């Protein structure tokens, strides 16, 4: 077994998973450290979403190990997973917003269900919860939608609410499953800008599953500048720091590429090159 670095937030070690005879994940191995970003490309059904679900323990693996924040969660019981899941925010592909709850209740849900588990503190006061919810909805520029229901919002707005719910507890790792799928380019860019802003404001680790090369390119090359409040090209000389972004490419459950953007662009693999578009 390889040594697990203490700064690693997620480590997949030879993970395999099959549905009937179809491999969903086929001997997948990779690791990511705190503050790093992973952009996952792949065709539909290639196993991108399954990486996120196995990382969270929502899907059990057939073999291999999943190590989350230094703990081997591969065989954790459901109840044992709740405390460690509270360190992970997630935006689901379908949104996953509770349609019977208002936007404010949706965003408050992790605060009411996870915070006590993570900190070992008592429950937050009602005023604290309301403040955090409003603050987080303002972050995604939806502070005026508190009393609305998800069905009253557009697709892009629902994704932004999903981001707010994913980050309201300030988790050190956030998983984004196809956050820009099916959105117009303007809304898609707004979503990616919000994700970059969230990542750089708190230096969180992030995994972004997407089909769009532009999303990965922005994640790898742009940073949020708190002084200007804008997303700007990352240049260490300007004091914005470097972006630690790597790209993964999935094909039929196999991880066929793991490297930097420059390596991705230089790849001669025909399948990998399909995801490099300008």
């Amino acid at each position: 077994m390889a040594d697990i670095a203490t700064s690693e937030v997620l480590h997949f070690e030879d993970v395999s998973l099959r549905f009937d005879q179809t491999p969903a994940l086929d001997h997948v191995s990779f690791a990511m450290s705190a503050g790093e970003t992973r952009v996952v490309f792949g065709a539909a059904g290639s196993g991108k979403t399954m990486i996120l679900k196995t990382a969270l323990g929502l899907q059990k693996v057939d073999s291999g190990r999943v190590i989350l924040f230094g703990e081997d969660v591969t065989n954790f019981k459901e109840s044992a997973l709740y405390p460690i899941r509270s360190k992970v925010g997630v935006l689901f592909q379908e949104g996953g917003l509770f349609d019977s709850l208002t936007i404010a209740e949706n965003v408050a849900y992790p605060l009411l269900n996870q915070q006590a588990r993570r900190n070992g503190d008592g429950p937050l006061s009602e005023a604290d919860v309301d403040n955090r919810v409003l603050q987080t909805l303002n972050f995604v520029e939806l502070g005026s939608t508190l009393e609305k229901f998800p069905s009253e919002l557009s697709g892009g707005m629902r994704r932004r609410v999903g981001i707010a719910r994913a980050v309201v507890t300030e988790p050190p790792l956030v998983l984004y499953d196809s956050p820009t799928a099916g959105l117009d380019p303007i809304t898609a860019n707004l979503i990616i800008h919000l994700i970059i802003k969230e990542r750089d404001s708190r230096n969180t680790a992030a995994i972004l599953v997407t089909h769009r090369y532009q999303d990965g390119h922005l994640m790898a090359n742009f940073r949020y500048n708190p002084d200007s409040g804008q997303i700007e090209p990352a240049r260490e000389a300007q004091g914005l720091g470097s972006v630690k972004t790597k790209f993964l490419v999935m094909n039929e459950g196999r991880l066929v590429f793991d490297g930097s953007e420059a390596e991705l662009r230089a790849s001669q693999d025909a399948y990998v090159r399909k995801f490099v578009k300008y």
Partner: protein
Amino acid sequence: MAARAFRNIFRTPHYADDIFIQMDVIGVGSLPIVILIGFFSGIIMGLQMGRALTTYGAQGQIGMIVSISLVREFGPVLTALLVAGRNASGIASELGSMKVTEQIDAMRALGTDPIQKLVTPRLIAMMFVLPLLTVIADFIGLFGGALIAYGLLNMTWAEYWSTAWRALIYQDLAQGLIKPFLFAIIISLVGCLYGMRTTGGTQGVGLATTKAVVISSIWIFVITSFIDPLFFT
């Protein structure tokens, strides 16, 4: 899932609000149709049995036949079939929609056990309200039978209610209450099971809904076939 749902009855957290909401949805929501069908079953039973009993000059026994048939069999079975059609489908479609829109995964990711939050409240609510609905259906059915006895068979109200009440023994009441309790377990768990196992988008939700109604209806007849011989005296 069934074992976890029962175990959760005694574990925290308890979602009391969800239990009351489900009691309202299942109990109050099903009340009009249960009253309607109970009433007409009593009338139909009174008419058909009255016709047969008149042949032997025994129409005075109509109260006994209606009460025994309703309390032992038709009340519990008809009520359960109605509730299965209305609520097993409702539960399966609601949970199925939540499954395909990843709300159940979101619930797990956000620190909530979906069995505790979604299944156990429906199980508790159904176990509580289905026996009550059955008692109401029995009483309304007896009233329907009374209208036939009074209007067509020339009996007095007192004669009818006296024969109906005296015909019932402890075992009839026990059978009439045990059955809906077991039916409640089947209807709620089958609805939840098919809902939680839904795959394949909206088409899958439709399929889960159909399966939940068909399977729970079949189980209602299977269970009643096993219970009846135990009380056959």
